[in-house]
């Protein structure tokens, strides 16, 4: 088992490196290039003057392609890391912040690749893949003893429920990271009309589509969590801080959906709600650090 755990960690390390490189490539692709032209002009007096002009150009297409390739590498290595650890632990690795974050990295890669293929836009990677890379840095910062596989505490000894409940949360958060990226790009594009960024309509649609996938998943998280809580703790809902933080996140996205579908909100206002929604995701994700209550075991 130890060998598998070590191999899993090495795969995670490879994934981390690949995603770091992918994030840099995507950022180079999305930010674009500056081409400076210098011209030497002769004046009527015979003197020469040097003039410089800067052109802002789209990022190199090859930078975007490398970004995609490296994200695939990062995703494949993250998948191997999760797979090997799953074999070692005989369950999906979701029991502590190391395992949860590792699986989250994989989910972000998967959701990002899905959206890149659906919409044929790579600029999202500058933000989504950077989030995935940031998550790998967070994993590196965790205490090394969390890398060891330990038996589940009694409250978590419900493997099927833990697998579905927690993986729903992971994929919901991953899709919300895509909607967050689309909102950021939307706000940039609407303020500074950078022509090589995707159109506002597409960015708006990406955000909506991502929430359309993530919101039902987050609802599943709340429902399955309640069913599990009923078996484990004897009550569906305890108003536990982790539960209510997830409910808060759900309500923020409910506001987004209502304002967009019924009030016809588009544009900056919708994008700002998506930013708030992702802030709520981060708040829920890292809530174990400052929440008490029934989910306190989920902390580091």
């Amino acid at each position, binding site marked *: 088992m130890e060998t598998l755990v070590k191999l899993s960690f090495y795969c995670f390390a490879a994934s981390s490196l690949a995603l770091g490189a992918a994030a840099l490539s995507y950022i180079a692709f999305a930010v674009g290039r500056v081409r400076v032209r210098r011209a030497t002009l002769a004046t009527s007096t015979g003197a020469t003057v040097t003039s410089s002009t800067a052109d802002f150009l789209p990022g190199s*297409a090859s930078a975007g392609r490398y970004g995609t390739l490296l994200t695939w590498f990062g995703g494949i290595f993250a998948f191997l890391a999760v797979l090997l650890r799953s074999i070692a632990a005989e369950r999906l690795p979701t029991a502590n912040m190391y395992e949860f974050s590792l699986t989250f990295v994989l989910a972000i890669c998967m959701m990002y690749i899905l959206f890149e293929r659906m919409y044929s836009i790579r600029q999202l990677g500058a933000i989504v893949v950077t989030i995935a890379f940031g998550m790998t840095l967070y994993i590196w910062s965790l205490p090394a003893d969390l890398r060891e596989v330990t038996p*589940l505490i009694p409250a978590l000894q419900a493997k099927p429920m833990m697998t579905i409940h927690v993986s729903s949360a992971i994929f919901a958060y991953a899709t919300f990271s895509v909607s967050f990226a689309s909102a950021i790009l939307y706000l940039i594009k609407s303020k500074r009309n950078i022509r090589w960024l995707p159109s506002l309509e*597409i960015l708006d*649609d990406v955000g909506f589509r991502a929430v359309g*996938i993530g919101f039902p998943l987050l609802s599943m998280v709340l429902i399955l969590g309640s069913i599990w809580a009923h*078996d*484990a703790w004897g*009550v569906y809902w305890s108003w536990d801080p982790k539960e209510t933080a997830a409910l808060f996140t759900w309500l923020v996205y409910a506001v987004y959906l*209502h304002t967009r579908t019924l009030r016809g909100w588009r544009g900056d206002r919708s994008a700002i709600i998506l930013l708030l929604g992702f802030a709520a995701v981060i708040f829920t994700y890292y809530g174990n650090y400052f929440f008490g209550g029934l989910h306190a075991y989920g902390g580091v």
Partner: protein
Amino acid sequence: MAQITVANGAPSRSPIDIIIDRIWRFFTSVRMAVLEITLLALLVLIGTLRGSEVPQWIADAAPVTQPLVDQWYGWDVFHSSVFAVLLTIIAVAIAVCTINRFPVIWGTISSPRIRTSKGYVERAEVSATFVQTGSVAELQQGMKSIFGERRYRFFTEKVGDDIHFYADKNRWAKLGTFPFHLALILLMVGGIVASVYGFRDRDFAVAEGETRRVGHGTDLSVELVRFTDSYIPTGVASEYKSDIIIYDGDEKVDSGTITVNHPISHGVATFYQSSFGISVDMRVEGKTGRTVYDESLEMGFYNSRDNPDAPAGLIRLPGEGLQVAVVSPDTDRSNRPDLDTLNLASGQVWVQVSPLDSNSDIEPATAILDQGTPLAVGDLTLLFERESRFTVLQVAYNPGIPIFLIASVLLVGGLAATFYFPLRRVRGIIQQSADGNTVTLTPLAKRDWGGKRDFYNLVERAGEHFTTTPTVKRPDQDETGHDDAIDDSREAENQ
């Protein structure tokens, strides 16, 4: 000067009608719905932070906020009347909105409007036009078959010499919002039913060998046969389980082992494993020599002031006017050993006999009991027989479970239908002209990039079917979403 003329022909409405209308409009207002959800989110955030250290961080950073933070920690948001009122308003709003919107949506699904206008399709943001030499009937049949391939419904209506058509897909998804919103109401109803008609005993402690009545109008009782716990090397419990027997009256009706995720139900009651602790079997003889207590005392519900790590219990003896405090050895000697002033060894307990009346002048008597050795302490004779285990169960009856399960299915199903099967609609006209017959079609996909993309795919398929190249009008040729960089790379790869 302008004059305002009031038409006399309009029937005047009664004040009650006006009030009802305003209430109806309040509850059907989307603006109000958004405001209500936003308020709810804010309350949930306040309640969530109350369960964290965040308010204290604020008070530490800005001491002037300490009184406010104290109030924050003291306010049980989720059981407050503000929260209950807001939930009630939201539930009513959901019900009223459903009643208000259902006929319109149902009408759109069951009998969609087919007729359109040339101006509409020609001025549409996105459209496609085919010019064909075939007959109108052939074109109509062709369009029907193209839409059919993609599982669209296809309706036609003859308007003059033209054929107007309407096609849609995933129309039932439009109804998904109703089960979803109904589920939200049912979840609230389930919670109310559980709290009104159910019961929940959180600290149902039973010592090994002891039988305890459930109460709550039942004749059930539970015997703990054995409690078992095991630990991983770090000291964390890896498993704890209780072997129990359930009695209905005197009759044994069920037995089994319960663990944290595996409760046992019998009749209305369900027994959940909650926690556990140690207990001490104590026998107490009163002033007259009569046995006044001979039970297992659950430890851990109290803590000794002298040593917080030591589990303690309290025996109340109203007949004697006395109480006996019992403290076991420290469970974690490494934690603040300076606080352990009792220094009990295994097989010992510390006891203190004191009057129940706190104003009494009688001085408390203290002693250390060795297991199996009776000792006179104050007016009592105490015997520490042995140490045993007790389990803490939760006993609950929740009649809201079926409602909750139905709500869960409706909620997830409704959302999945709404978001994973988006409604697609297309309108169009088949017109006769001198150059040939023309088909013009447009999607109902304003600000819906996904809907437009599906439309472009459909038009491409229609072009293949009619072996012609359609004229496609796009909203902004530069803003179609094509990533030039990806297209360039694909071209390069193809070359």
